[in-house]
């Protein structure tokens, strides 16, 4: 029966199908290798952060030297910064595993966008106290947005941290919110052309291809992969503002609740 069925197929079609499948397997293999090599890189980064904590703690505990107050503060600040880095990597890997196992469930419900934005700005401000102190322009809250409060706060703060770590002058950033007919827009302005191109390019890619992006560091790839997935699951779009004459700005369109 199978032979009869096979004999009806054109050998050329079969060959084309086979070549297509081979190409698909090769692409999947490359994506799989990129994914695992990304995990190896990030886990090495995490090991280095935990080593810094151990080295700094053992320095503070050492008996052969009496540290002065400012050096003690410096070592404590290093421990604080490394443990923040470590927590962020752990959080990213946790969300990444949920995305990969398709078990990331978002609870989309009406929320106040101003509140979520100020939570995210607060997180970034705490992590980068010397270079980031942006506050959104005070606007009265309007209609709620339909999003998952926790995950949108995470994605927004990750996006802002990515920008702060990429931009040469992050202190110049300005953030605005505008309510439109069926959505809210968060505008992030005074970005460099490189940063805008990088973000738009990555958000345009198939998610699996982010792993293979050549000019991004491993930790940044995971950040953007997580942000993109959270945004997509909540139908949030990222766009440039060229059309409205603002070449240094990107905007996030967030669906609002129907009145």
């Amino acid at each position, binding site marked *: 029966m199978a032979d009869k069925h096979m004999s009806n197929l054109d050998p050329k079609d079969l060959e084309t199908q086979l070549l297509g499948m081979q190409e698909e397997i090769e692409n999947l293999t490359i994506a799989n290798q990129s994914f695992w090599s990304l995990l190896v890189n990030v886990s*090495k980064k995490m090991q*280095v*952060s935990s080593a810094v904590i151990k080295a700094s703690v053992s320095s503070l505990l050492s008996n052969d030297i009496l540290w002065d107050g400012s050096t003690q503060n410096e070592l404590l600040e290093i421990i604080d910064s490394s443990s923040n880095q470590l927590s962020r990597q752990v959080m990213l890997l946790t969300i990444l595993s949920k995305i990969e196992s398709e078990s990331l469930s978002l609870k989309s419900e009406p929320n106040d966008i101003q509140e979520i934005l100020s939570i995210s700005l607060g997180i970034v401000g705490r992590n980068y106290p010397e270079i980031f102190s942006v506050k959104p322009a005070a606007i009265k809250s309007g209609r709620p947005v339909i999003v998952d409060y926790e995950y949108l706060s995470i994605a927004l703060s990750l996006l802002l941290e990515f920008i702060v770590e990429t931009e040469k002058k992050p202190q110049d950033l300005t953030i605005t919110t505008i309510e439109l007919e069926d959505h809210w827009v968060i505008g992030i302005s005074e970005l460099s052309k490189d940063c805008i191109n990088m973000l738009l390019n990555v958000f345009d890619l198939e998610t699996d291809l982010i792993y293979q992006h050549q000019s991004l560091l491993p930790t940044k790839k995971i950040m953007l992969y997580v942000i993109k997935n959270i945004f997509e699951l909540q139908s949030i779009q990222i766009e440039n503002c060229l059309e409205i004459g603002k070449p240094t700005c990107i905007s996030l369109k967030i669906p609002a609740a129907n009145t």
Partner: protein
Amino acid sequence: MKEKSILLVSDELNLLRTLRRNLISRGYEVSVALDDKEASHFISSLDTSLFIICLDFETVELNGLEIIREIREKSEAPIIVISAVGSENLKIEALDFGADDYLVIPFGMEEFLARVRSALRRWSSQMADHQIEENIMIFGKLHIYTNIHQVNVDGKKIHFTPLEYDLLYFLAQNRGRVVTHRELLRKIWGPEYGDEREYLRVFISQIRKKIEIDPASPVHIVTEPRIGYRFGSDDYLK
């Protein structure tokens, strides 16, 4: 040559900060390099007596092993490698490229500082030996007369075959440093060798019988399991 000048190479700022602070507080002079270009600048312009390199660069274009190779081309000062990877292969590769010691993350500051002291002690002892006497190497009761290829133990001349002498001399020249099996085989037997570890076992055993008081507990030629041999333990070098 500044005796306590150290170059730290890593792209991890917090690692650099904590190591630098500890070293400076103990009187070392410390420079830092974030990548290969900065490292290259320092290698050419500084009299560094110890290099410390973290191999785990986040950028894939940066290869720590290549930095080790570049340092080795320009300096004989000791190199300590730090890495999160504790695999035997990478350790051997780093040592083959010219590193002297390998410290796996995580480590306590006491251990790190002990390795630094040990590397600098070996380096200054090497520098002093070069200046005092170029024709004789003295290790307790073991004397190697390099101009006449003669070995004496406790004042008595010991017969050494040319190959045994070359092996002992090469290890003694690199005292304190782990020399890998491959490096020894290539240096003594030739570049086509590398996997014949049994040769080494035989020759090292013969040499130990001639120079060690107790060949079963050697103090001159110490085995670094699965990696190679080190001439002189740290205690011996003090």
